[in-house]
């Protein structure tokens, strides 16, 4: 699905990251972990084609990203940014409907088929009752769900989610993680970033650790999320505790 080769990314005059290499298969879920300022958002923007790569290459379905038109990228990759209120009171349904743009001609407006796709996305995220509410009047969590629904309305094959669980309550966090797993079962690849290493254990097939723009580790969560890597990224002492049933969880040391 996605192949990243020795990617150097950043802004004109300022390099943010170097030598990032990984691949993402169809239906695979990858979690990107890293401290603030480590370059996660910049990396995502480069993968979406919103920023020019400075070095290396990004290939989407085998072809270089630069070879795609903007709309063609949008038909394949959906982006879920961190939600914010925005100035205008579009309804939740209208916001989700915006996701159909990638499939519309320049002068077209959404038709019946597009509305049905949007409805299904709303249903999938449990947003039917909120559909007519202005997006400016829903809670942060509901807004985030609406943005996920919008990305789903794009019918992408890859979903890039920038800290989708930030500012969500615990229940909503869990719902999002479950949604991510469900998407993966449908064959949609997901790339998401988070600050909580446990999310990688819960939802990801593989994890990429990014600090100061460099890949520290890449592999299954079990393999790469270890006390030493966590200490290196976050500067705190953490114990990785195995659980009955095969999972793991992180337990930070509260003293010392």
């Amino acid at each position, binding site marked *: 699905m996605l192949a990243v080769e020795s990617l150097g990314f950043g802004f*004109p005059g300022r390099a943010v990251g170097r030598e990032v290499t990984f691949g993402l298969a169809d239906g695979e879920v990858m979690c990107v972990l890293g401290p603030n300022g480590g370059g996660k958002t910049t990396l995502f*923007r480069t993968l*979406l084609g*919103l920023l020019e790569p400075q070095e290396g290459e990004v290939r989407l379905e085998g072809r270089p990203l630069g070879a795609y038109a*903007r*709309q063609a*990228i*949008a*038909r394949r*990759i*959906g*982006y879920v*940014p961190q939600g*914010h209120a*925005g*100035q*205008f*009171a*579009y*309804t939740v349904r*209208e916001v989700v409907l*915006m*996701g159909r*743009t*990638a499939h*519309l001609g*320049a*002068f*077209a*407006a*959404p038709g019946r088929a597009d509305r049905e796709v949007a409805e299904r996305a709303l249903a999938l995220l449990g947003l039917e009752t909120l559909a007519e509410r*202005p997006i*400016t*009047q829903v809670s942060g969590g509901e807004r985030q769900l609406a943005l996920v629904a*919008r990305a789903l309305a*794009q019918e992408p094959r890859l979903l890039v989610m920038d800290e989708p669980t930030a500012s969500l309550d615990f229940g909503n966090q869990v719902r999002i993680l479950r949604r991510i797993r469900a998407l993966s079962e449908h064959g949609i690849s997901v790339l998401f970033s988070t600050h909580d290493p446990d999310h990688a254990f819960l939802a990801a097939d593989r994890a990429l650790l990014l600090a100061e723009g460099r890949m520290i580790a890449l592999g299954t969560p079990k393999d790469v999320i270890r006390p030493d890597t966590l200490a290196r990224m976050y500067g705190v002492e953490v114990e990785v505790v195995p659980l009955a049933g095969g999972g793991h969880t992180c337990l930070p040391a509260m003293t010392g």
Partner: protein
Amino acid sequence: MSVRRASYLVAAAALAGLAALAFGLGRYPISVPELFTLLGAKLTGSEHALSSTAETVILQVRGPRVLAAMVVGAALAAAGTAYQGMFRNPLVSPDILGVSTGAALGAVLAIFLSLGILMTQAFAFAGGLLAVGLVYAVGSRLRGHDPLLALVLTGVVIGTLLGSAIALLKYLADPYNELPAITFWLLGSLAAITPRDLASATPAALAGLLPLLLLRWRVNLLALPDDEARALGVDTRRLRVVVVACATLMTAAAVAVSGIIGWVGLLIPHAARLLVGPDFGRLLPLAMLMGAAFMLAVDTLGRTAASIEIPPGVLTALIGTPFFLWLFAVARRTW
């Protein structure tokens, strides 16, 4: 019936009513039966008993003026709607990139050189387009800033520059002759509208309107942050160019024939949005209806209330300011 549907009907009805009223009102007294007789005669091609002056008033004076008021109001409202969406700010007016100031400079220059009405309009039109072209050319080259902020700041700077050029011309103008003419133009007026003005302004306004109508769905996406819109598949740069070009064309066409009339482009889209929400496809027609009705009401008042003309810019500000403050106080926080 929902508020939305009611809004359209009320606006359309109000416009039709106002148009009929405007045809019947004026300093030159023409009764309603006379009006119908005249229009009927014209439609059927038969004779009528009214004086030729009455016919001239209806067909050559009031007719074009009523239509022009509607076109100007609709054009300004449409431009304001487009800009407010594009700049993601409901407090934006069509002049944010300097089209009115540029048009004013063109017109003032033409008056200063005593070039006559036709040239004044042409200069105003060209001035408006050139000003925005300059702002866009400079603003979009400023890298490393939010593109919209760069445009706005450039617009402010260049607008100020053009404003000082206007001030200079006013200073140098002959105070007995050119200066009063300049002052009258800057106050805005539809008093001198001829059928020819209408014939030149309307196509330009339509030319600006058509792409906006065609792109009405996509324009909604400009309300999103740039990254999101692009990730959804929109070429934001190109779309912005089109929106700016269209809104500028419409505003320049309006300002060329009517001078500077403020508030319409700021207030009407705002009020319309409160009624039907921000979806551009729904908002644009309502804003245009309301803009046309508002402008028509203001202009009719200005030409009938006294034996002298009251500048429409003065009236729109007088009516617009308290109305705007009321909207601000009463409306929900969201737009």
